[in-house]
C-alpha cells in the first residue's frame, strides 16, 4: 500500500477533527473493503482515520419500537445479540450470513452501509425495514440514502453513528451467495411494516432497489404464492461470469418467495 498518515481517535469529535478539510482523508471502520483496496494499491488516501477506538459508536439498544445499532458494531455482535434476535430475528439472520467468521468479527454495520457495495447485505435490511441512518450531520431516511453504485447521501467527513430499525410485524431475508465471493448475488429482504410491505433487493442491481409489484401483491396477500409469477425485468441488472442479468432477475423472484416463507415461519 501507499504511505498515509494514520490517526487513531478516541472520540467522535477527534475523528471529525482529523477528517476536517482533508478531501483525500478516509475513515476506516472494519476495513473489509478499504484494506484490500489499499493493499492492491487501488486507493491512495492522504490520511486514514481509524474509528475502531471510538467506544461511543458501538452497541445495540432496544429503543421504543425498534433496535438502534451503533455504527461501529460488528456483524457478529448483531448476529448473536439476544435483543436483535428477539426484536427483528431476520436482521440477526442477515448479519449471520455476511462473509465468513473473520469478516463478521471485524466488519461493521456503519462501514457496510456507508460503502454501499451493490452486493452488501445490510442495504437490503435498511431499505426494507425503513431504517433511519443517524450521522454526525443529522438523520437520513433509508429510501433517500442509497444513491447508486458505491454512492450514498453521505457528504465528505460525515460519519454514520447509528442505524435504527423499527420493529416490523414480520420479516425475512434470503440470500443467494455469489459462489466465489459469497457476497449477495441476489439478496431479498421482505418486511411487513407499519407503513406497509417493503421488498428490497441487493446484489442484483447497481444499488439496492425496491420491487413495487411484489410489495403491492404482498400487501393484499402476504404469502409466497402471491408473488410467484411476478418477474422483474433483467434490463439494468448486474451481469458477470457467475450470474447473467436474466439469472439474477429469476433469482429475485425465487429469493423473494423464500424470504416471505421465512417471514411467515
Amino acid at each position: 500500500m501507499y504511505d498515509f498518515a494514520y490517526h487513531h481517535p478516541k472520540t467522535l469529535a477527534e475523528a471529525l477533527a482529523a477528517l476536517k478539510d482533508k478531501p483525500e482523508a478516509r475513515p476506516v471502520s472494519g476495513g473489509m473493503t478499504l484494506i484490500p483496496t489499499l493493499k492492491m494499491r487501488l486507493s491512495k488516501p492522504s490520511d486514514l482515520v481509524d474509528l475502531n477506538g471510538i467506544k461511543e459508536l458501538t452497541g445495540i439498544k432496544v429503543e421504543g419500537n425498534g433496535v438502534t445499532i451503533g455504527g461501529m458494531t460488528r456483524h457478529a455482535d448483531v448476529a448473536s445479540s439476544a435483543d436483535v434476535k428477539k426484536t427483528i430475528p431476520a436482521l440477526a439472520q442477515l448479519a449471520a450470513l455476511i462473509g465468513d467468521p473473520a469478516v463478521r468479527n471485524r466488519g461493521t454495520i456503519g462501514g457496510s452501509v456507508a460503502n454501499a457495495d451493490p452486493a452488501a447485505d445490510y442495504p437490503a435490511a435498511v431499505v426494507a425495514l425503513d431504517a433511519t441512518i443517524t450521522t454526525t450531520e443529522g438523520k437520513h431516511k433509508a429510501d433517500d440514502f442509497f444513491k447508486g453504485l458505491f454512492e450514498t447521501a453521505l457528504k465528505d467527513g460525515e460519519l454514520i453513528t447509528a442505524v435504527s430499525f423499527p420493529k416490523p410485524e414480520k420479516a425475512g431475508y434470503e440470500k443467494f451467495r455469489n459462489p466465489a465471493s459469497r457476497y449477495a448475488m441476489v439478496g431479498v429482504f421482505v418486511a411487513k411494516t407499519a407503513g406497509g410491505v417493503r421488498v428490497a433487493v441487493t446484489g442484483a442491481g447497481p444499488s439496492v432497489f425496491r420491487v413495487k409489484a411484489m410489495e403491492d401483491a404482498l400487501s393484499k396477500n402476504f404469502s409466497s404464492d402471491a408473488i410467484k409469477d411476478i418477474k422483474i425485468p433483467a434490463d439494468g441488472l448486474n451481469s458477470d461470469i457467475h450470474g447473467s442479468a436474466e439469472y439474477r432477475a429469476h433469482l429475485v423472484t425465487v429469493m423473494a418467495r423464500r424470504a416471505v416463507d421465512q417471514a411467515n415461519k
Partner: protein
Amino acid sequence: MTAATGIGARALRTEDKRFLTGTGRYVDDLPLARATYAYFLRSPHAHAKIKSIDTAAAKAMPGVVEIFTGKDTADAKVGGLICGWVVKDKHGQPHKAPPHPVMALDTVRYVGDTVAMVVANSVGAARDAAEAIEVDYEVLPANVDLARAFDKGVPEVHPEAPGNLIYDWEIGVKADADAAFAKAAHVTKLDIVNNRLIPNAMEPRAAAADYDKGTGNYTLWSTSQNPHVLRLILSAFVLGIPEHKLRVIAPDVGGGFGSKIFCYNEETMVTWAASRVGRPIKWTAERSESFLTDAHGRDHVTHAELALDKDGKFLALKVDTIANMGAYLSTFSTAVPTYLYATLLAGQYTTPVIYANVRAAVTHTAPVDAYRGAGRPEATFVIESIVSKAAAEMKIDPAELRRRNFIPAEAFPYQTPVALQYDSGNYPPIIDEAIAIADYKGFEARRAEAKARGKLRGIGFSSYIEACGLGPSRVIGQLGGGVGQWESAQIKFNPTGNVQVLTGAHSHGQSHETTFAQIVSDKLGVPIETVEVVHGDTATTPFGMGSYGSRSLAVGGSAIMKAADKIIAKGKKIAAHLMEADVADVVFEQGTFKVAGTDKAVPLGATVFAAYVPHNYPLEELEPGMDENAFYDPSNFVYPSGTQICEVEIDPETGVTEIVSFTAVDDFGNIVNPMIVEGQVHGGIVQGVGQALHEAAVYDKQTGQLVSGSYMDYRMPRAEDVPSFKLANKVTPCPHNPLGVKGCGEAGAIAAPAAVMNAVRDALGPVGVQHIEMPATPMSVWQAINGGK
C-alpha cells in the same frame, strides 16, 4: 515394528507437530542478512509489442538496488526456460519449440508475462519503483479461444509455431478405427471441454537466493517439488552454474499439485541476479501473481466417438483433442496431453482399437502444464463420460455396460492398444463393492422421493485407471522424456542407533516423513521415533527426481526397501562375526540377528555400534559404518484403479447442485498408512468436485484478461460442498515393486469429475437437458434447464 507404527498402521503424522503449531519453515520465513526483495513487473496485455522500456526514473527511487529487463538477461546470455519432453508429431518431427526467455524481449504473450525485475531494500520500495517504469506497448489482437486457435487469421503467438500448432500427434491407426466403426451397431458421439484450472496451492511460489563471492557458490531456496531436477535444469540449460556450485533447497512447501514441478523464470532470475547485486534476494508471489503465472492445468477441447456392438461391447474409440499449451511451453507441458493422456484411453476396458489425434496449441494465456493427475483426469473424463452416455442411449444400466467391457482379472498383465501394459487389477469386485456401499439398488426410490420435494436427483459412475509411479526410465526415454525416472534412498545409521533416511523424493503435503519412517521402522525393527526422514536439499540428499505423478511411495519407497536390504545384509555379516557364526545361518527378525536353531542373538543396534566403533569387527572383509545407498528404477508404471459413485440433488429453481453421497472404492495395492491414504483420496475428490462444479480459469476472449483472477471470482471448493465420503479398498498388490504398492495421490482428482458430471447429467436428463459442460455452476445448470437463456 509395533503394530501402531509399522506398515499398515494408522500412525499419526510426524510432521503435524510443526505444521499444527505454526513452526513449519517455508521459503518466505527464511531470515537472510542484508536481504533485498524482488518484484516482477507483469504485462497488463495478452499480446503486445514492447516499443520501449524506460527504467531511469524507477532506478532513481529510494531503496532501489537494481532493475533488470529482458535486454539485460539477453545481453548476459541467460538461457531460455526449457521444455524437457520432446514429443514427435505424426510425421516423426519434434514438436515446435518457440523460445521462452526468462523476461520478455520485444513481445509480451500473456497477461502476467514478465517485463522487468526490480530489486530493492523492501518489497514496498520495489513495487513503488515498478510503478515508475515506463513501458510503451503497442497492443495487438490476442489468440485466446482454444477451439479457434488454429483458424486462419488468428494472431500467431510465435513465428516458430506457424498457425499456433506445436504438434499434430497421433496414437493408433485411424484406418483400423474406421474399419471397426463401420461394423458398429451403435455409435455414441461426445463433444466436451475439459475446463482450465488454476492450481492454488496454499503457499504461493517463492524463491530466495544467496551468492557467496568467496567460494562462488549459489544457494537457491525454492518452493519446488523436485529440487534436484530444478538444479539440473538451471545448471545444464538455463544459467550454466555448475551443479556443484549450486545448492537448491526446497524446505517446507505448502502444496504443489504439480504447479511446483516446473522451472520458472522468477527462481531463475533471483538466482542469476543474486550474484549481480551482491546481496541475497527474496521473492514471494502475491496471490494475484499466483493466479496469473502459476502453470495452469487441463484445458482441452475434445470430440470423441465410441463404437459398440449390439450387446454393448466396445469395438473402437476415436478421440480428437486440442490441448492448450498457453503462451510458452512449460517444463513438461508437451507430455501431458500425449503420453499421460492418450495412452490412458483404454480405461478399464477391453476396447480393441483406439485412435487418438492430439493437436497442441499455443495461445495468449498463461503456460499450461501438469496439475494433479496430469492428462489422466482428462482421459478419464472422456472415457467415463462417453461410456455413461452410451449406456443412456442404448438403455443399458451404466454399471452393467462397464462390467461387460471390463478387462477380466485373468487377462493381466494386459496389453492395451495404446502402448501401456497394465500390470495388475481386478475391476468387477471394486464396482460391486461401490454399488453396495452407495445402495445403488435404492437409487430410484430416492430419486422419486427427491422429485416429490421438487428436486432432481442423479447418480453417476466413474471407473478409472491411471498409470503413475513414474516411471520406467527406459520407456520414458523412448517416449521423449529428457530425464530418468528412478528414485534414490540412503539409510544412514548413527553410532547410537538412530537413523536418517535421505530421499530424493520431496514432501509438500504427502506425509513422507511418516510413511517412509513406517517402512524403515517395519523393515528394520527400529522405533519410528528414532527415524528421521530428510528431503529437499541437494547438498544433503542423494540425487533424486522429486515428487509428482503419485511416484514417491512406489518408486522412492521401493528405493528405501532396497537400501534397507543392504543394511540387513551388512548387519548379518557383522552379527555373524560377533556371534562367531556362519553368515548363512544368521536370520534377521524384528530388529534382531539370530543364529537359527540357537539362542544366540545380536540386536541391530549392536551391529551398528560395532560398525562405527570397530574394535571387534571383520575389518579385513567389511568397511566400517552403516550407511547404504540405493537407486530404484521400476520395470513398469503402477496402475491404481477404482470406481466412484456420486449422487447429486439439483434445485431446479436455483440451479444449485448438492452432492448428497460420494463413494470411492480404490485399489492402491498394499497400503502403508490407511489414514494418510484416506486423506489423499479426500483431497483428490474435493479437487475433482471443484473442477466439476466450481472452478474455472476464465479469460476474456477478446482481451485475454484473466477474469477469474482472485478468490472473488475463482470459486474454490469448500468443506461444506462435500458430504462425508464413503471409502473402501480392494487390494491387488503391484507385482513388480518390493512393497506391492500403487499410487494414491491423484486418484480422487482423476475420477471425480466424471462421477460428478455423470450424476449431474443423470439428474438433468429427465428434464430434457442434452448437454452441460464443467463447471456445472448454478447459473449454467439453470440455463441448461431453461434452454440456454
